[in-house]
């Protein structure tokens, strides 16, 4: 039983690391602001959820596990909201005639 939980936990951790890595690559490689926000919020939400669930499985039913659950709940509220706020203000800025395209450097 313990071994099964350990394997699931490592699948979650490695999967989360992979999602964050893909999100990071996307953040650099995608062509414009909105696709980049998509990549960043993917890493922010999906990757963080997987990593924290993996850690929770490692911690088990301890105080650390409860704290991780609280952090996960907090992240589930904040990171989609942050992505929304960024995209929304980019649209507003575009409507106001500001240039939101990525400077190529």
């Amino acid at each position, binding site marked *: 039983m313990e071994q099964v939980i350990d394997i699931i936990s490592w699948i979650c951790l490695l999967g989360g690391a992979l999602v964050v890595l893909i999100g990071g690559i996307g953040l650099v490689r995608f062509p414009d602001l909105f696709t980049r926000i998509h990549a960043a919020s993917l890493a922010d939400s999906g990757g963080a959820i997987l990593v924290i669930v993996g850690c929770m499985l490692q911690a088990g039913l301890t105080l650390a596990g409860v704290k991780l659950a609280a952090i996960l709940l*907090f992240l589930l*509220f*904040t990171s989609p*909201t942050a992505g*929304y*706020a960024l995209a*929304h203000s980019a649209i507003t800025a575009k409507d106001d005639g500001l240039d939101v395209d990525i400077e190529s450097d």
Partner: protein
Amino acid sequence: MIIVFSLFLLTMMVVVALAVVETRNLFAAAMLTGIFSFLMAANFFVLDAADVALTEAAVGAGVATVFFLGAIALSSEHEHSASRKFGLALLAVASTAVVILLGTMEFPILGDGSAPVHQHVAPWYLEKTPELIHVPNVVTAVLASFRGYDTLGEVFVVLTAAIGVLSLLGFPRNNSEENAVNDGLSHQKILHIVGKLLIPLIILFGLYVQFHGDFGPGGGFQAGTIIAAALILYALLSGGDRARRQMPPRLLFGMACLGAFIYAGVGGTTLLLGGNLLDYSVLSHDPVHGQHLGIMLIEFGVGLAVASVMLTIYHAFAGHEHR
């Protein structure tokens, strides 16, 4: 494993520091200093300095970044390119770096328990804290009781920061009711609802950090910053005018002074009761109980002063442009 992590953190810090120097865009520079502070906080945590890590994350990465953004909003987003003479500066920096690097050769290895710094007063603190003060967190015992003098000084430094900002920018003037058009982000429903949900939780966490400081990482400085961050979030969501009507900056500044006064007042009370300045043992019949009482009171004073100073500075920056 932890060595690899430390090396990664330190390398990233060097990269971020170089990027801060290199960029001309001040908005990017402010964000990079926030990232730098987060890396520093993680580094402190690796070194088992949880209290300092909490402070660095809350102050350096959180509130300081907001202050930078407020200052940028009042000025320009781009750095003026000045004529730069590299030669002399490079020579000075390079020679200092060589001296410092030579100095580190003599240093004891990181984490060496027999290093002089760990043999000076630290063993005494570790040995005497359970007996004299009886709190699990030695950092709080050192900060609030053994070295209460220094912390009193720090609180007055924080208060001086608020006085400095206020004397430069002045108290923000409130717009009268009819032309208070600035309602912040309250027309954005998603942000408003999520903010409403999170602000009480953040304040609750701040109170936990405040009153749990004797037992775990935390204390007045961290708690004050966290509570101030929640109230800054409120001001961003509901508009500065509304936030200032509910918590007038003059009242906030008065609360900051009250916080410092509580701390100094505890010191004065111990003097009047016949003890030394900030020797809390005289506050109660039982010296250990007196220490607990004194630490709780001065931590409350610190939290009040820090939260009020942060909010005063924020409102001084944010209310300036509406004049």
